[in-house]
């Protein structure tokens, strides 16, 4: 199946179980949103999927178009088309944005081959223009001294250059002013398409006004407890997570 499929996932960090039997399917061509209270395990899901070593998968499966991703190295997952826009991206001193993205693209080429430099810069500049990032940024060190919003925009720039099949955006909207939010949303909408699945982790319904999701999932205590269409986001905004929690307890 052409989807990112997560089944019965259990993940522990430092011996503490965080994800408890989480299942979720993100078909290609769709945009899904995950909302949930602080500490419910949203970032944990993202990190476990991309293979951070601190996140131990105890049981469950995750496949990308049928391929088992837990069987792959971190960089293999990336090259197979899995991308995470980090909530807190790392700084890499001395490595320019331009060299960094180029190295990432070169890593996708057959061994010994590099991307064409002229075509690369043409692409890079046009994507930067779309995301309203000043050209001066190409020669700045990755994330070093960037404002919160600049970091987020830079994550989206990387995503649009790497053109992954499945994108996870972890709170890409936090810390953005309203203009930046619109630009980032445009950038994401531009990437929407039948060949790509996008999973947006957010706390704010506001973002979903600009990127209208096909489905909304509510995460609570390490699992998806409710799924629905975009109206679910409004409901949560209005009634809070307690409402979901109460509904949960009532149904048990």
């Amino acid at each position: 199946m052409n989807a990112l499929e997560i089944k019965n996932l259990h993940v522990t960090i430092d011996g503490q179980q965080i994800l408890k039997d989480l299942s979720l399917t993100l078909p290609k061509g769709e945009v899904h949103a995950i909302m949930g209270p602080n500490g419910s395990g949203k970032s944990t899901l993202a990190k476990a999927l991309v293979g951070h070593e601190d996140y131990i998968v105890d049981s469950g499966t995750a496949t990308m178009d049928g391929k088992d991703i837990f069987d792959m190295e971190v960089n293999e997952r990336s090259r197979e088309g899995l991308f995470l826009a980090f909530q807190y991206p790392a700084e890499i001193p001395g490595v320019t944005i331009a060299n960094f993205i180029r190295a990432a693209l070169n890593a996708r080429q057959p061994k010994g081959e590099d991307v064409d430099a002229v075509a690369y810069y043409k692409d890079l500049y046009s994507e930067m223009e779309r995301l309203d990032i000043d050209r001066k940024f190409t020669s700045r060190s990755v994330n070093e001294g960037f404002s919160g919003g600049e970091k987020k925009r830079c994550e989206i720039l990387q995503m649009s250059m790497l053109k992954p099949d499945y994108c996870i955006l972890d709170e890409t909207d936090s810390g953005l002013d309203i203009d930046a939010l619109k630009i980032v949303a445009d950038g994401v909408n531009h990437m929407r398409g039948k060949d790509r699945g996008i999973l947006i982790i957010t706390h704010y319904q506001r973002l979903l006004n600009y990127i209208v999701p096909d489905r909304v999932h509510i995460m609570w205590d390490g699992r998806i407890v409710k799924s629905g269409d975009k109206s679910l986001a409004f409901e949560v905004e209005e009634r809070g997570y307690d409402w979901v929690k109460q509904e949960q307890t009532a149904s048990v």
Partner: protein
Amino acid sequence: MSTETAINIDREKGNFSYDTQYEYDAGIGLNEGVVNYIADVKSEPDWVRKFRLKALKVFWSKPMPTHWATKDLENIHFDKFRYYLSKGQQPSRSWDDVPADVKETFERLGIPEQERAFLAGVEAQFDSEAAYSNMKEELSKEGVIFVGSTEGLKEHPEIFRKYFGKVIPIGDNKFSALNSAVFSGGSFIYVPPGVKVKQPLQAYFRINAENFAQFERTLIIADEGAEVTYMEGCTAPKFETTTLHSAVVELVALKGAKIQYITVQNWSANVFNLVTKRGLAGEDSEIKWIDCNIGSRLTMKYPGVILKGRRARGEVISIALAGDGQHQDTGAKMIHAADETTSNIIAKSISVGQGRSTYRGQVYIPKHLKGCRNNTECDALLINSNSRTDTYPAITVRGNNNSVQHEASVSKVSAEQIFYLMQRGLSEGEAMSLTVNGFINDLVKQFPMEYSVELKRLIDLEMEGSVG
């Protein structure tokens, strides 16, 4: 971008050797007989023989500097090395006349190719002697001399003797004494007043034979207003037994002259690399050492400048990469001896795995001088927690009219950085390589393009090799 023109001295490319027949062989071990043998084979004038024999005595009399340096020096067994090996031929001016096995060695290392691409002259040394030495004709017409040390001392004694052993005296340290006793090969360069050599001159030092110890000796003199850039590359095959490389390099920049000396060194892990390098800078002159140390078992090297003339400038840019099991003990010396002299030291070291790097600096500005300035910056990058780094800056500045600035930093490549890069598709080795290249990026920008490409490639290889 093509890397084809860069000097190809990567670890694997350098890891081969030929079963060569040597006409001259001083045998194993060190004694007066060996020193006399070398002087005889080279038919040197008497003053050189005396200089050598005196140096041998100084060498025996000096203790190993283990009171401040690593105890690993005790693992150098001077009686196990071969001190002189040559085929007995004069260096050829044409690659066609170079013996087949030697020629093939340098072809595999890419030397003739680079010469065509971007060099003004090349000297290629195979064990003790240069096999090839050539310079563009325009330069000889302008009076530039670029020959081996033996030819230099025989054919140009009036210039050679004036400076030889003056910047680095025999007894400077135990290894400068050893080099003075058994030196062979290396370059002698003289650039006449006002002549600016635009393309670099390059020397390439190759150890081919097992147990062979190499002692090249280089003397470069830039006369008033002259300018020259010299680059050296080195490799040796991976042998089971240890090898010693112990060079002495003396630079003299007369009034208003500029000398830039670039080293990109990639010794195999069995080489003890103990080198003394120093320049004497006259009024308004400039000496710049760019020193990249990758590989070797132990490197001890502290390029220095004696700032003797008013407004002289000295600079050391040093990059050291200590891989697993390696120790890079590097640094710089700046001795201010005139008013308004300035010096700048930027040293960056990278330690990987059990690799160890040490920075040793010495900056000396005496009280009676005015308007002197020094800037020292040393930054260390650690890749994984076993790595070790030490800094001994030793800055002595007296007098109120002089200024120094000193900054040091130690940073670590974090697991989060590597993870971030790997999430973008880079392998662990590529990720480490990118962070290392980022760390030294501001320095590498100052290199000639061919060398920065080469350095990047060497780091890529080293980092790939360091991931299990």
